[in-house]
């Protein structure tokens, strides 16, 4: 029997928390160079809180949309910070996008990625090239759209999304920050990757992983 979309999403958030735990110190170090050194800590607190909130959901009755909106509030209430409103808005928007859906096919994944990146953009009012997490989420969402349009296989689809995310994260090192704390550093932010972009790429990898190992 196929794993429900609800369970896939719950597992996805577990994976996201795992990858953040692995990357935590590295993310804080990146943030120490151009920000206030807490990004790894904030993301770790946030995703632990998401999973704590999800553990109180009954996954047999909850919808995929419920998972996403529970994650949104759990994240927001635990961390605040910049990432709290950004990811909470992203996840909430994804919850809306997946309302009435109970299948997590590639089209649904495309919509989810698109909703997350639009939520982040609307909340943070940043643009591409501002050296933020958006420089990962936007290209990843675009790659997903293109992937569905050209009928990519599931592994190829996720490979394309991951690549776009990784390239986006790497590219932030060549940008001058104009949003968030790093913006005050101006030219001095050059040469440093944006911590929020690096964590976003890691999250997308976790999403890809969870989706690809989905039992069918």
């Amino acid at each position, binding site marked *: 029997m196929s794993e429900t979309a609800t369970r896939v999403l719950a597992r996805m958030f577990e994976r996201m928390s795992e990858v953040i735990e692995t990357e935590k*110190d590295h993310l*804080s170090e990146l943030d*120490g*160079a*151009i*920000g*206030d*050194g*807490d990004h790894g*800590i*904030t993301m770790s*607190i946030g995703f632990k809180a998401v999973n704590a909130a999800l553990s109180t959901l009954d996954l047999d009755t909850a919808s995929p949309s419920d998972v996403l909106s529970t994650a949104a509030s759990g994240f*927001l*209430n*635990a*961390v*605040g*910070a*910049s*990432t*709290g*409103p*950004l990811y909470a808005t992203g996840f909430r928007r994804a919850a809306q996008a997946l309302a009435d859906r109970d299948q997590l096919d590639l089209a649904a994944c495309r919509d989810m990625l698109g909703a997350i990146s639009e939520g982040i953009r609307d*909340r*943070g009012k940043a643009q591409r090239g501002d050296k933020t997490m958006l420089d990962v989420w936007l290209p990843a969402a675009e790659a997903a759209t293109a992937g569905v349009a050209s009928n990519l296989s599931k592994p190829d689809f996720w490979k394309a999304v991951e690549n776009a995310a990784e390239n986006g994260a790497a590219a932030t090192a060549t940008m001058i920050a104009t*949003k*968030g*704390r*790093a*913006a*005050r*550093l101006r030219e*001095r932010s050059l040469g440093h990757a944006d911590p929020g972009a690096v964590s976003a790429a890691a999250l997308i990898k976790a999403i890809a992983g969870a989706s690809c190992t989905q039992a069918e």
Partner: protein
Amino acid sequence: VKKFLNNPNDVVEEMLDGLIAAHKPYLQPIGNSRRALVARNGPRPGKVGLVIGGGTGHEPCFVGYVGKGLADAVAIGNIFSSPPPDPIAKCAVAASGGAGVLFVYGNYAGDVMNFEMAAELVEEQGIPIRTVLTTDDIVSSPVEDKEGRRGVAGNFFVFKVAGAACDRGMTLDECEAVTRKANDRTYTVGVALESCSMPQTRRHNFEIGPDDMELGMGIHGEPGVSRERIRTADEIVDTIMDNIFKEMKAEPGDRVAVLVNSFGATPLMELYILFRRVEQRLSAKNITIEANWVGHYCTSLDMVGASISILHLDRQLTDLLHHPCQTAILSINAPETDGAARG
């Protein structure tokens, strides 16, 4: 870096245990939320409520400024992280006396997003919210982008003026206007000699070379505006004051308030040496110091460094600066006090 800690992940909760116990005479949790504290003698019907807040790691900011005549409630985030909308909204509701609520907090992306989300929630309940972002760190952005600047230790003056305006029974419009004026006339520059370290990492966020200092340092351990060779105390103050004089349009005979603030690890002895030069530079321009504060008023964990803030007074600001207040950290002309704890 060694610290007095138990589990580093519990540091904020444990600090709040200690702080709420120590400052009981001034503040109390709102409901069972320890991230939203309200002044015992703050909110009252007909008075504009003042809500402040931000991340922890800046002690005595922000909790130290909650009490009669100053802020009515404070929302508390994780270390160097804005509080989420929920405790901010709780603060706004608790502070509301039917005359609206003023939010005053530092201009950081995270704080702006969270306070705005909270404002939306609270306005839906019919409580009008106004916001003044503090932007006193004059080297963090050029003057053309004044609104893009960070709020740092000069918060102190902006809070004080806002608290006094609210306590005087001024309207929400008037409170907002005078708070905005206080922010416009507050000028801060900070210098760090060593970066701070988070309880979780216990490593410096970044390294400043043995002969270097960081000019324009932020209060979250984020790097400053330029790395320079360390100079004498007088030369450092001169650089700071030159920056301030470039923007502050003070005439001979004008009055200012001065705050010489430690970032955490810099001791009073050095702050007095800095104050000495600030006083010399001001009096050379025939500017009078109406009041001064020298000490730990807005810190960045254990950062070594200091900031200098000047509030350019006018008659109204002078009046509001002297308005009585009584909090854990600041007691001005306090008419009656309980004599117990002050921190």
